[in-house]
């Protein structure tokens, strides 16, 4: 697997929450060679399974790896003199989309621009205010007469953003939150293919995270794993963000510590990283993590859950930026963690013995 190329394909795929068809297809193609089963559930989750090689008298155990594949976006709400009015789907800072190219997913994909007024006609006082969404329009360059033939209220709009490799192993694009997480799942499964592991592994690309962790909720119920790791993005240290608010770039995955995460899971991940000298860092999250881990932890009778965050700059903009090395490190860490899963760890977690 070429991390950069897979990230490019996933980043450029269109998949606003609830409409994850494109990234799902990319993820499925990438995961298929390394997994035994691939299924899509009622909410659009891609659930893949790679069976472990277990000794005859040990109970079966499984781990779920979850990374969401949906992205934030916009939606058409109205027409005005040939321009489109829209609303946001997920947490979009509308200040970051002025002058942005978009794709309106109408009868055919319509390229467009979030309209801005030229500075020549704007008094300086107006340039100090952010534009409320009521004053934003999308221009697809189509006449007023024809616009409603091509698009309708409810059509999704995504950012039109070419994936851009930067210097020093960094890369920028849209929807790296959390397609980068999906890449770690593929990297992990590929690595496991060359390793021995006794536990079954569900690698799940989840849907609808950005609108309320919905895919994770039902897929954790469905796969009913003994333990789970969610991979999502965390605030990477960047210009304008304080150190205490962020995790470091290029320092490896950030292992979550706090009530949302089982202490033994976090501890075991840290021990594994130390043992194999995989770069990692800690991220303290005092409560709600806002990730799939939040939903998975309370599925069924409760699931010991961990979170690994990929350091990511400029979250929820179309220029989200990651360090490719962090993705590779997280994939490797998860694979090593899984390869070492055994009955004694299951007992330490107090997991039911299973049916044997």
């Amino acid at each position, binding site marked *: 697997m070429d991390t950069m190329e897979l990230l490019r394909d996933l980043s450029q795929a269109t998949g606003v929450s609830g409409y994850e068809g494109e990234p799902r297809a990319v993820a499925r193609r990438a995961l298929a060679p390394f997994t035994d089963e691939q299924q899509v559930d009622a909410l659009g989750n891609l659930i893949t399974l790679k069976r472990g090689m277990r000794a005859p008298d040990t109970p079966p155990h499984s781990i779920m790896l979850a990374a969401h594949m949906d992205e934030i976006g916009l939606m058409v709400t109205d027409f005005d003199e040939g321009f489109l009015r829209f609303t946001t789907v997920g947490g979009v*800072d509308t200040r970051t989309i002025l002058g942005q*190219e978009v794709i309106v997913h109408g009868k055919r994909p319509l390229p467009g621009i979030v309209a801005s007024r030229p500075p020549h006609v704007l008094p300086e006082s107006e340039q100090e205010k952010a534009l409320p969404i009521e004053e934003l329009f999308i221009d697809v360059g189509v006449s007023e007469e024809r616009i409603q033939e091509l698009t309708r209220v409810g059509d999704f709009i995504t950012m039109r953003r070419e994936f851009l490799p930067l210097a020093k192993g960094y890369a920028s694009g849209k929807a790296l939150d959390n397609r980068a997480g999906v890449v770690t799942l593929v990297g992990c499964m590929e690595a496991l293919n060359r390793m021995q592991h006794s536990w079954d592994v569900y690698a799940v690309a989840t849907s609808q995270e950005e609108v309320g962790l919905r895919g994770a909720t039902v897929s954790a119920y469905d796969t009913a794993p003994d333990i789970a790791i969610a991979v999502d993005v965390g605030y990477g240290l960047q210009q304008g963000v304080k150190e205490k608010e962020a995790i470091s770039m290029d320092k490896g995955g950030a292992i979550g510590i706090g009530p949302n995460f089982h202490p033994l899971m976090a501890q075991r991940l840290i021990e594994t990283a130390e043992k194999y000298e995989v770069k990692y860092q800690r991220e303290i999250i005092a409560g709600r993590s806002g990730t799939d881990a939040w939903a998975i932890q309370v599925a069924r009778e409760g699931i010991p859950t961990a979170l690994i965050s990929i350091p990511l700059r400029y979250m929820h903009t179309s220029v989200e930026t990651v360090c490719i090395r962090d993705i590779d490190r997280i994939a490797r860490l998860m694979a090593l963690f899984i390869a070492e899963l055994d009955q004694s760890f299951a007992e330490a977690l107090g997991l039911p013995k299973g049916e044997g």
Partner: protein
Amino acid sequence: MLLEALSNARGVSGNEDQVRDIILQEIRGYIDTYRVDALGNLLCVKKPRHASEKWPHKVMIAAHMDEIGLIVTGINENGTLRFDKVGGIDDRILLSKQVLVGEKEVPGVIGYRPIHLIAKDERDKAIEADKLSIDIGASDEESAKELVTVGDYVSFRTAFGALDEESRTVKGKAFDDRAGCAVLIELLKETYDLEIHAAFTTQEEVGLRGARVASYSINPDAAFVLEGTICDDLPKKKDTSPVTELGKGPAITFMDRSFVADRRLVELLVTTAKQMDIPYQFKRAVAGGTDAGAIHLAREGVPSVTVSVPSRYIHAPVSLLSLSDFDHTVQLLRAALYNLEGGLP
């Protein structure tokens, strides 16, 4: 398409070489002489078909090659780049954009704090440019210095492309004024009974610098300035001028903030448009300025007029124009030049 190559070319004010090379390549076969002056203006002469002494004889046609952009002013400890704006840019359009830095075209992005870390009452404030920086992937000052230098020019990373076929709309950066450059190139493909001085000027966006010296050295009898101008025809609550409207033909300026157009040249354009049945509109706001502001004040003064292709979202990373407006602008100017052969009314 020529407009495509011109739009994709990088030429922030003071750094117009790439644009000039493309233009020169394109026009060599249509001009008699050319030179590049001290400010980087490309000045071309196309001789008349027949020698004539009628006034006006020496006609200057100008379009500026430069575009708005950014320039690197420093490198932060964390490897990001500080910048200043070159030309008039609304700070608000800088957020979340891709850029190219310097001659090596090092890719970079302008990011901002995640929405999650911004208090609700902060979200209605615009972010000033000095709070932003360019991220090229370098993690410290030293590694950034391997790739960029203070003084490097920064342009938006935008690709030219078609929007709607039926409406003949296209998008790309710097239609102000690569649209004008493309019109001027088209005009040079014909021959007139006038001595045509085509001036592809520099540094318009920072104060009409190129046009000022070009018009001095050409010393023309009359001047036409070709522009990609403001088209602000968005739906608005208030009774505000759209300045120009997309698809309604070339925009003739009677006055802007930099000059008052010569009445005879305005009349020539309007009469020609009517005679040829070419759609036209007036630029309906005294906003913005063009090279005409410098040219009409050259030496003893030069009768001047500006004609523009209406362009939405100028001075932003991506602008939009209608190719039918573009074609009509070429047609109108060509016919007006022929009409001018008989002298001004």
